[in-house]
């Protein structure tokens, strides 16, 4: 949730009360794209942020698209208590390795995740991240995918055959467009 949306939502007494009662952080960090979490506790959110950054690490991306993943994990946990339990227990076990996961160096975090990669917890987080992160137009922009083409009339006039570092095939193999 962006700051403005949050402020709007915050005006609703019910929403505000529910947030306070569940101990959820009430100030969203708009700059980093940090979402308002409904079910996950702040430490769980921070841990999942670090975890999702290690699962699909892209240095060019800031935290915002990863927070979107955390938001979707939060939504899944809200609608299904077994997911909430899986996430909570997974994080507890990640933190029980000596130091808390978020205190580890990036390389140590990767090693810690390698140890749990076959668990249902890891698979759940990876699966939600896979769908959310790579369906995010802000991520497409950074990784060089232009996505839906229909509203622009397709790629026929937008470079479908603009590759110039190889010779064009002969017309017998590749006729000109209509």
């Amino acid at each position, binding site marked *: 949730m962006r700051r403005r949306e949050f402020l709007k939502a915050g005006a609703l007494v019910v929403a505000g009360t529910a947030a306070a009662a569940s101990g959820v952080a009430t100030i969203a960090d708009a700059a980093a794209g940090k979402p308002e979490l409904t079910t996950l506790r702040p430490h769980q959110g921070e841990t999942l942020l670090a975890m999702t950054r290690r699962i699909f690490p892209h240095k060019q991306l800031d935290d915002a698209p990863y927070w979107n993943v955390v938001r979707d994990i939060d939504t899944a946990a809200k609608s299904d208590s077994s997911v909430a339990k899986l996430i909570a227990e997974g994080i507890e076990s990640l933190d029980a390795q000596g130091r808390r996961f978020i205190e580890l160096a990036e390389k140590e975090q990767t090693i810690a*995740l390698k140890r749990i990669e076959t668990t249902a917890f890891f698979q759940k987080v990876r699966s939600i991240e896979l*769908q959310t992160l790579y369906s995010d137009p802000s991520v497409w922009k950074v990784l060089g*995918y232009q996505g839906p083409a229909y509203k622009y009339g*397709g790629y*026929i006039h937008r470079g479908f*055959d603009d590759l110039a570092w190889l010779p064009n095939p002969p017309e017998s*193999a590749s006729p000109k467009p209509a």
Partner: protein
Amino acid sequence: MPRYDANDDSVVLIVGSGAGGGTLANELCRKGLKVVLLEAGQRQSPATFRNEEWFAFNQLAWLDKRTTSGTWRIAKDFPNLPAWICKTVGGTTVHWAGASLRLQEHEFQARTHYSGITGANLIDWPLTLAELEPYYAKAENKMGVTRTNDIPGLPGNNNFKVMYNGAIRAGYKTVHTGRMAINSRPRDGRSACWQLGFCFQGCKSGAKWSTLYTEIPAAEATGKLDLRTESMALQIQHDDRGRATGVLYADKDGNHQFQKSRIVCVAANSIETPRLLLNSHSTMFPHGLANSSGQVGRNYMRHTTGSVFGVFKQPVHMYRGTVMAGIIQDEARYDPSRGFAGGFELETISLGLPFAAAFLNPGAWGEDYTNLLEGYPNMAGMWIVGEDLPQETNAVTLHPSEKDQYGLPIPNVHYDDHPNDLAMRTYAFKRGAAVYDAVGATRTVEVPPYPSTHNLGTCRQSAKASDGVCNKWGQTHDVKNLFISDGSQFSSSAAENPTLTIVSLAIRQADYIADQCSKREL
């Protein structure tokens, strides 16, 4: 649209509205027969399709639970998704990429040519290429296949430019933008291709042939078609003479309905078709309907697939334009000196970023994988489509305990790669990489098979009743008025994408059914 009475036993009842069932429905309606077409899915249209991979997958794919077993990697990567096929009006013609190739003569005689391979349950088709050729010609005209009927080929996109140059430098000769059921010019009331790049997600421009907006509206225009959507066939019933009497199905509210019929044609794709026959067991047919041979569900084939992606120093943008933008045909020949029977086609393929991330290495994570994905704009891709061999133990069976939402056993799909399949895939991976290396790939990636879109052979045609399920018309050996009308009929998988052959067989089957009806044989 007519609504035929449930007790009207003069109708032809077809299960499934894809390449086989949708085409058969139109052909029969145009001959004046009354058709009830049951489709398990909802009706979409180009207006409701979305250029978004996950959305479209959830909108169109058959997601009812299935299980898998066997040595194929699908059982590990996608244990509950053996096939990527559709539950929607138009079936998998909504999702297909449009490649329309005729089978080759030797592929109709798999046993004759490939005999003596341990573990392969080979037979010849009871049908020859010569017998099917007139129907291939009709199908190509119907579907508007490029490079036939004076229809020009499609323009090649960037992905094809890379394939073409690499293929020529690697020594290949037959390389072009394919025979595609995608309009290169406006035709049949549909536009030319917009090069959207979302062929798999339902073609929003309508340039790609799909029964959804060609055969089915044409059948509706005859006034003979009664299409019932969200109607899941549960059981084919029969009388005490062993003749099919109609189909029990669940309507969209889950209520059971029984529709009587003169003839039943099953075109539910190669997993659901045998499942329906197996679930139709009775005292008279304890092992399932039309299964006296024990071959219903067996000989499941899915093509020896795999993909090769190449990463280059400069941009490709493979996602721009048609998914199967071109083909290398040189390896489709019959040439056992390569160390395997059968051949394979190499066809461009592209995935949007969401599916590239999901499929390039299922289950992968970490820096090596994201490094690969960061090469996405500079990536070109090709798909291997090769002939896999029928094995009796590769089979669709009923799960011993798990039931679906209708209370019927779900299907399990068992597949072990045959050594011949593995030898072909290994060879094809090397050849694909050689194509990309020839134009300066900095990296090539061998990608394991996706869930199967080509599902074949589970109710196959056979000359002898003991070798298969149906004859060369798709008519089951055991039940005279029961037909198999989809890719389940295939006696061999061949190297070609199967849709054109499924459509040709459906046109031919319609002629036969009409003829038999007029002679009172059916």
